[in-house]
């Protein structure tokens, strides 16, 4: 899941398992891509190649889908993905300062991954948690009512 190559054996293992779980049909394509993306951290070319064989869909079409959705990535991502809610309700309650602190702490800009492969900093559309903004999600953990000074402590929880 770090940057660098994931060996093909691992990819085959994940792709086979995910497809066995969902079934090899087109209406399961986005769930399949979501799961593979989650397990491998992104969608490597080899994974798309294998999914294409299973589903009998051209790879170009899979790439078209993978590059369309914000949550799917065709580029390697960090071990931990931080999603920052950039919508208006979070923006007006101090989101700007949290975003600035995140970028400074991680020395990353939007959609960048740190060289050590630990962090990817991404933005997301409204998470619907507007009453506790500003909100970030790290992997699957939600943090609400954030202030800039909480950021270093939260980041330190992840290895």
């Amino acid at each position, binding site marked *: 899941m770090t940057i660098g190559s994931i060996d093909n054996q691992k990819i085959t293992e994940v792709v086979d398992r995910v497809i066995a779980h969902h079934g090899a049909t087109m*209406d399961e394509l*986005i769930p399949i891509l979501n799961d593979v993306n989650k397990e491998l951290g992104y969608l490597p070319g080899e994974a798309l190649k294998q999914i294409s064989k299973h589903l009998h869909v051209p790879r170009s079409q899979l790439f078209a889908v993978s590059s*369309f*959705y914000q949550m799917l990535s065709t580029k390697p991502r960090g071990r931990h993905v931080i999603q920052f809610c950039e919508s208006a309700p979070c923006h007006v309650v101090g989101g700007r300062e949290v975003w600035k602190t995140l970028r400074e702490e991680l020395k990353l800009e939007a959609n960048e991954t740190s060289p050590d492969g630990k962090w990817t900093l991404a933005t997301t*559309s409204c998470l*619907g948690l*507007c009453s506790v903004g500003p909100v970030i999600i790290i992997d699957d953990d939600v943090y609400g009512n954030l202030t800039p000074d909480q950021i270093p402590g939260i980041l330190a929880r992840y290895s």
Partner: protein
Amino acid sequence: MKFYRSHVLVCIDPECRSKGAYEVLDALQDELVANGLIDEVQVLETSRIGGCDQGPEIMVYPEGVHYANLTPDDMAFIVEEHFLKGRIAKKFLLPITSVVDEELSAPTPKEIRIVLRNCGKIDPQNIEDYIAEDGYMALAKVLTEMTPEDVIDEVMKSGLRGRGGAGFPTAKKWSFARASAGTPKYLICNADEGDPGAFMNRRVLEGDPHAVIEGMAIAAYAIGCNQGYIYCRAEYPIAVSTLRLGIQQAREMGLLGQNILGTDFSFDLEVRMGAGAFVCGEETALMASIEGKRGEPRPRPPFPAVSGLWGKPTNINNVETYANVPQIILKGADWYASMGTEKSKGTKTFALAGDVKHTGLIEVPLGITLREIIFDVGGGIKDNKGFKAVQTGGPMGGCLPSEYLDLSVDYEALTAAGSMMGSGGMVVMDDETCMVDIARFFMEFTQDESCGKCTPCRVGTRRILDILDRICAGKGEDGDIELLEQLSQEIRTNSLCGLGQGAPNPVISTLKHFRHEYEAHIYEKKCPAKVCKALIRYEILPEACTGCTVCARNCPVGAITGERRGVHVIDSDICVRCGICQQVCNFNAVVVR
């Protein structure tokens, strides 16, 4: 059935979970087991009790005692005090009257709760809680006493219209899908609630998922279809898991699946998740996404009722539309139609946000005025500032000024005023809001979310945003307003789907009602609301300045000069308008011009 002397509801909303609600729940259960009380006290998970800002929190019944600000370590004390000794643990007591649910507070007199009636009151993870509130009675009634035509007639009489925003009569949609040739037919619930600041549907899915499931089953019976999908945004993981659990429980009880309630009607549901694309809330894009394609809209007709998912007849309604259906069947069309206006019946949920005192979810009868919503339900403008505008209909809606405060909130009136009903976002703005900046902000959003398939939307929104950026940066030119009007008109008429057609609305409506602000930006190079940084200047009032040097020492770019105990001056050419000097000045000597 087991009887318990006490029930403890633990709030497991995302907010409380992020503060450790599950750890509290585990600790509570451990303590109850350790004290031999686990057969006397039942612990339940609920979606919302009070204000999660004081979470994690629990509610103990039958006493109705509310404890907040809990940690796992506090559980031993609470179990001992409350359940063993029978005393209220005052230290954690938070009187329920003072509890503020930031999303959904107690209904004000002007509100009527139909869709939100169970939210926060029942355990969404337990189907029996829903059944105890007359849940699935409507489905039983429909399957045993009514023909599909009866159901469509009843919903027709109720006047229910699409709550996703467009307001198409629901029963008419159903009858099209029913009449449409071709099998199988599909039923879809649009739970891709993407408008920033709108979270009504999330609350219903997380707090009362079975209302949606039951509503869908009734619709499926009316249309004659056996397979349904709920398309939920991936940004709502808890809604997805609550729905999945709800579907599973309904299946186990024979309320979904083959031969529902022993009749020959069969219907099953699946949840499909998006992957982060706003445009997937558009129905044709949504279907493309379920089919495993890029979520791009296609021209209509053919409408989904004729050729929808996999080219088959498909009916799509929004979460809120389905959630209304069981109540209409149970209480009757006349009851539902008694609320609202002539053409817009029933209630509508809104997410009230922005500069209003009480933000959060509300449910009001249609036909209520904007003034009643903002001042009676919302409590008026925050900090006693003046009202400037209200934006309805989400990022594709319009901004309405104070002249429209007495406008009736219904589909036709909002559209006629240049805004729209939309899914239910309502952003209130005070008199310190710059309307050009607001238009720019919404344009940034639609520009970002444009799927790129059709040129008017892809390129047009970009051009509008460029012009607005320029105006806000103080580089507006003569002719910009006319250009914006022309572009808006072209994007509106030529775009493929609702996203593009609605994208210029914030610009059109602000141009109509706040044209003078655009003119001030362009011709006088002034931002009347003092928001646009390029158009404001920070100045030090010589009579108030004491020469304490605090501002000069804190200025990050060294724009402030002056001797100690002498008047300081800001060099506007160096100043980056960060506002730090104003914040640090103890004598209110720094002003914005």
